[in-house]
């Protein structure tokens, strides 16, 4: 890389406009957030190891669940995907860099400030009444009239994260629309690029809604408005409608790029092209579209009219169809392939299997009459952790293993990678599978204490969580080890069956500016 003239030291990172540097910063940032959010998860699981309050007073426990959710959603998963988009999209579409490099830099550097605002609320000298304690869904009036003083910092933090996400999304859209190599039509774009464009549109459409919701919270708290206060003609339920109008597409923002990743890894290691490329694209687009019309399935107990409940039930169940298509297509991709099981493939397979489990519990939750029993219990916690941990997080880990040799030019340690995988998949199931049972048996969400009948499953979950948490430190070691040289040099194609411009047209490691000259795509 000696011929690429760019500043070194701190100013390289502060002022960089290079998509690879920014991508790396996003990924490291998200990993740090993942560790902080994970630490909070471990504190939660420690408190829940046995009945009785062991460590925290209930209010602080609520703050832990709130911060865990916010940090994992906005600090770990979303920046990780933006980081991958930065690294991969220019290489996959044959571009030298992202279209708007300076905005790219800015959108990253907002994030540390946003999360400092949020984490500052943990300092008791500043906020004697503690950090936000109303859950990551921050329902009014618990978060408005009854929220702690740190809620205002939380609101500004969310505004900043929103601005950052929007700038990231604009960048992806402009890059994909304007910078594709000649010959790369929309329907020839790699799946990861497709899923990210759709994600970017989701971001553009729902981030203003989130910003609007927190702005209304702010004016309700300080400027005498009554958006969510019945006393002045408002309605707390309207908050939930606005929040979930943002929140449900947000769920897909956190999973669609992982769909794209699986659609690269499975064909590579099956040595066979992706089955049903076109239907994959259409399925992704329809999932994205449906995500806008199903939001109130998160609110089946607020007392909606029965016609509304019926509509949201049916619309939600329909989402299972395109999601099923994707899963069947992945299985069909493997069918009659020639499969090997390197670490990325193992994580991608675990993604498909465990995401399917999260999907079927999703269909159960969609059915209004039974959802009235599942709602706000650990069954829901199990469901969304099954789609988020093996979905978004395993997807990201798979992507890192898959593209790391291309990024660094070195192979990671395959044996350690496999150990990491087996450890993670066992731990993830020990952690989250028992939550299905405790939820069905009647344990509600967001409580620091519970009856003894839930003790066994909670202990299992806690043991699994600690395994899962410490297992990820091995991942950190593997990545650092690979960056420093790993197990020798990677070939340009890296994987025997790898397709795509980044593997066929670029050396490993990829040059600082990806494609100085646009490649010809046939």
């Amino acid at each position: 890389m000696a011929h690429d003239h760019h500043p070194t030291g701190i100013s390289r990172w502060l002022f960089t406009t290079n998509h690879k540097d920014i991508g790396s910063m996003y990924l490291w940032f998200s990993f740090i957030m993942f560790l902080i959010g994970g630490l909070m998860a471990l504190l939660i699981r420690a408190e829940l190891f046995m009945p009785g309050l062991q460590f925290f007073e209930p209010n602080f426990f609520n703050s832990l669940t709130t911060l865990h959710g916010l940090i994992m959603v906005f600090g770990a998963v979303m920046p990780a995907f933006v980081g991958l988009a930065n690294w991969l999209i220019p290489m996959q579409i044959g571009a030298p860099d992202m279209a708007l490099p300076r905005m790219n830099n800015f959108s990253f550097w907002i994030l540390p400030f946003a999360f400092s605002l949020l984490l500052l609320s943990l300092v008791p000298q500043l906020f004697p009444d503690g950090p936000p304690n109303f859950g990551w869904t921050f329902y009014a009036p618990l978060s408005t009239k009854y929220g702690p003083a740190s809620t205002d910092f939380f609101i500004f933090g969310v505004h900043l994260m929103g601005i950052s996400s929007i700038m990231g999304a604009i960048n992806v859209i402009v890059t994909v629309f304007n910078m594709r190599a000649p010959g790369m039509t929309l329907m020839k774009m790699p799946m990861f690029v497709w899923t990210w464009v759709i994600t970017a549109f989701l971001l553009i459409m729902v981030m203003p809604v989130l910003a609007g919701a927190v702005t209304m919270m702010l004016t309700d708290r300080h400027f005498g408005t009554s958006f969510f206060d019945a006393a002045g003609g408002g309605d707390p339920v309207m908050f939930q409608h606005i929040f979930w109008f943002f929140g449900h597409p947000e769920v897909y923002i956190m999973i669609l790029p992982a769909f794209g990743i699986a659609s690269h890894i499975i064909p590579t290691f099956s040595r066979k092209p992706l089955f049903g490329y076109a239907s994959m694209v259409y399925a992704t687009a329809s999932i994205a579209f449906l995500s806008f019309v199903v939001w109130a399935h998160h609110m089946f107990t607020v007392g909606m009219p029965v016609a509304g409940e019926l509509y949201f039930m049916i619309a939600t169940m329909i989402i299972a169809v395109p999601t099923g298509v994707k899963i069947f297509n992945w299985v069909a991709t493997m069918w009659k392939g020639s499969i090997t099981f390197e670490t990325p493939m193992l994580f991608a397979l675990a993604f498909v299997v465990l995401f399917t489990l999260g999907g079927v519990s999703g269909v159960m939750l969609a059915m209004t009459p039974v959802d009235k029993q599942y709602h706000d219990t650990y069954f829901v916690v199990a469901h969304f952790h099954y789609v988020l941990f093996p979905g978004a997080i395993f997807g990201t880990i798979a992507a890192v293993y898959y593209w790391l040799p291309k990024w660094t030019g070195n192979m990671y340690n395959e044996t350690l990678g496999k150990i990491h995988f087996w450890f993670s998949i066992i731990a993830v199931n020990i952690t989250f599978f028992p939550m299905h049972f405790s939820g069905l048996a009647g344990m509600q969400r967001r409580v620091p204490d519970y009856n003894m009948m839930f003790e066994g499953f909670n202990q299992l979950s806690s043991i699994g969580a600690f395994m899962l948490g410490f297992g990820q430190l091995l991942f950190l070691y593997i990545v650092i080890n690979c960056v420093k040289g790993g197990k020798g040099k990677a070939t340009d194609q890296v994987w025997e069956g790898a397709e795509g411009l980044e593997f066929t047209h670029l050396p490993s490691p990829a040059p600082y500016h990806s494609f100085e000259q646009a490649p010809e795509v046939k």
Partner: protein
Amino acid sequence: MSERKNSKVVKKVIGLLGLMTLFTFAMVPLYNVFCEITGINGKVLVSKELYESVEADKSRTITVELITDINREMPWKFNSTIKKLEVHPGELNEVVFYAKNYSKSTITGQAVPSVAPSQGSFYLNKTECFCFDQQTLKPGEEINMPMKFYIDPEIPDHIHTLTLSYVLFNATSKSSSSLSQR
């Protein structure tokens, strides 16, 4: 080279962004209109209806339950003198609510009505109600507040019971932009 192409796409995306922002704030009035049309949450139209001596339908009896609540930060006593009454659709009824300020300061209260089943909110017409205005009581002051209503004879057959709830909120700090002016 592609600067212009880029700014074209950026402008479009920002346009979409602006539209969604507008939409978010438009959701507030839209939601209210939607609620008033469909009766979600039993949100009651807080508008004064005129009683146009409609024919009372003596063949039907509807049980009207009156329930009251005080929001936590409201140091008043507040209840209805009657908890339950049987009415015929179309006839004009009067009930009385009682409130007293227990605190040491002058406090303004705003009663917020809600009806269950929510569909019933269309058929409960109030001709006179304390909830149209705010009430200000001095320390220790008490008040009897009449409320007159009639039930629209077109109320669907399957509704036999209507529950009218009033929750009293502290409106002292809020400006006078109350329900009645919305």
